């Protein structure tokens, strides 16, 4: 066996590590072992790569320097980013992945194009465009999530035509480049169009659609790695890329189903078109409001309380306060659970991570499918910063933009408290008929302070101080 065979053998073990790491992710109890398997696989792959023929002495120094710089940025990024900033952190990391894949595609093209077949040329063209698209698209997504860019979808007339033109331009250039690989300008132009398309693709997408988009960018990043693997004949890249692509695709499908929308609808439909509907349907009747004391009293004597967290909880960073409230209620003998809608928050699983950070045991976090049948037997539901995912209009109002979206059936509970800053319509501009339900009472205020007050009311601390 020559040296390359040994390297490939090491890569085989690495691929096994990656597959095992996904397998062990299927349970909370084995998930950390999964991370370890991935790390070991990666370690083996990197060490094996250092034995690659033709790496020069100067090359080793450059590799070491580059990896040190990368670690110097990556370690703090991993250790210090707060859990509330996780969606933008994930998006940013997709951006780095896309950039690396795109640049390596370009470098490889200029080094090896004499040896490329037409298939290679086509694949590498797609790979470069995808990598660059993921780079700018993810940066845009991160910017929107961090609120450096407006979270509202930005739409203008002819947007889809402009996007289609950029896409067609990129496809045309890839085809041109297959037949004219000696042209030096074509590949940089493909990269430029990819960069542009990434920006254009994310501009019309609103914050509420971010979970799907992040998952989709994840899938694209995987596909570009796999495409690179095809051109380079690297089986490890193909395997890792396929695993990554499959994961992103599955998550994107789950997100789309949870919103009852198609991919194309998320990417090209934008929510902007629904603004008119939202504004037209303002007058929905009267609502009732409750004070914190009233809400706390009712929750204290309830036998079951379900808390429905949404993006508002993340924005207010209220997860720790929420956990204190849950603890206080449990001490009073109340059964407390959390109902998590698949698209609550800004990325798949967002609420679960925040509540886990606040030490809520994961048995208390229930999926929509697990909890929906229980709402009818629930005494009190507390809706915290969630809106569209609890709007009953999704079940029956065919004119509603969210009609058909699976929702949490909180309106079936005995009493519903909705914590909200004001009666302003939600992100998508859709009026929520839950707020006008006669079983619903609005508790106005910032999620974090309302929850804190509820907790002190439940524990009786506030009364003690007041007396």
């Amino acid at each position, binding site marked *: 066996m020559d040296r390359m065979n040994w390297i490939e053998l090491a890569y085989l073990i690495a691929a096994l590590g990656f597959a095992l*790491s*996904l*397998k062990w*992710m*299927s349970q*909370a109890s084995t*998930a*950390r072992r999964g*991370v370890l398997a*991935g790390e070991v696989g*990666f370690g083996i792959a*990197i060490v094996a790569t250092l034995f*690659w023929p*033709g*790496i*020069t002495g100067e*090359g080793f120094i*450059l590799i070491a320097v*580059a*990896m040190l710089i*990368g670690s110097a*940025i*990556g370690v703090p990024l*991993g*250790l210090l980013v707060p859990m509330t900033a*996780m969606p933008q952190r994930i998006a940013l*990391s*997709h951006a*780095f*992945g896309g*950039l*690396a894949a795109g*640049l*390596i595609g370009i*470098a490889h093209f200029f*080094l090896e194009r004499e040896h490329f*077949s037409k*298939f290679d040329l086509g694949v590498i063209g797609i790979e470069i465009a995808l990598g660059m698209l993921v780079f700018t698209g993810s940066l845009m997504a991160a910017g929107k999530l961090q609120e450096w860019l407006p979270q509202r979808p930005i739409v203008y007339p002819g947007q889809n035509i402009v996007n289609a033109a950029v896409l067609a331009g990129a496809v045309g250039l890839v085809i041109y480049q297959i037949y004219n690989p000696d042209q030096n300008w074509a590949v940089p132009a493909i990269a430029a169009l990819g960069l542009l398309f990434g920006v254009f693709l994310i501009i019309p997408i609103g914050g509420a659609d971010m979970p799907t988009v992040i998952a989709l960018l*994840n899938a694209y990043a995987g596909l570009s790695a*796999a495409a690179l693997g*095809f051109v380079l004949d*690297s089986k490890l*890249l*193909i*395997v*890792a890329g*396929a*695993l*990554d692509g499959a994961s*992103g695709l599955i998550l994107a499908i789950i997100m789309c189903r949870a919103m009852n929308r198609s991919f194309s609808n998320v990417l090209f439909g934008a929510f902007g078109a629904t603004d008119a509907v939202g504004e037209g349907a303002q007058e929905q009747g009267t609502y009732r409001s409750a004070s914190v004391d009233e809400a706390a009293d009712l929750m204290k004597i309830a036998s079951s309380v379900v808390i429905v967290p949404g993006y508002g909880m993340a924005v207010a960073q209220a997860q720790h306060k929420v956990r204190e409230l849950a603890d206080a209620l449990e001490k009073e003998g109340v059964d407390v659970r959390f109902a*998590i809608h698949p698209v609550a928050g800004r*990325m*798949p699983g967002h609420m*679960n*991570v925040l509540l*886990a950070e606040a030490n809520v*045991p994961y048995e*208390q*976090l229930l999926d929509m499918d697990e909890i929906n049948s229980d709402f009818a037997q629930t005494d009190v539901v507390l809706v915290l910063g969630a809106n569209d995912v609890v709007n009953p209009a999704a079940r029956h109002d065919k004119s509603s933009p969210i009609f058909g979206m699976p929702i949490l059936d909180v309106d079936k509970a005995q009493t519903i408290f909705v914590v909200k800053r004001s009666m302003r319509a939600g992100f998508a501009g859709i009026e929520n008929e839950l707020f006008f339900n006669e079983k619903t009472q609005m508790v106005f205020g910032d999620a974090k302070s309302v929850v804190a007050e509820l907790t002190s009311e439940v*524990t009786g601390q506030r009364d003690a101080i007041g007396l």
Partner: protein
Amino acid sequence: MSSDVIITSLFIFMLAAFVGFESIRRIPKLLHTPLMALTNALSAIALIISIVILGQGHTTYAQVLGFIAVVASTINLVGGFIITDRMLKMFKPRERAPKPAAGSEDGVA
């Protein structure tokens, strides 16, 4: 690339995608964010090719692109694994043992 190699690559891609679909389908929604962070780290796999291109240093152009790519994918790799583990550490089952000092806490209030 010859057709043989392409076919082999397609086989590998198909089987890996199948394994990916089947294992990821089983991952509960609870762990979807850590899953994204983990696959993020895995997508840094372009690192191995970046290392080769940077290390061989055939042209300055390739070296510059390779260098940026190694930095970018190392950020992804290191940050991705650290953050996945950090998140997973937080997912705890309910503690069954009764809290020992519960009584004294009530007294303070």
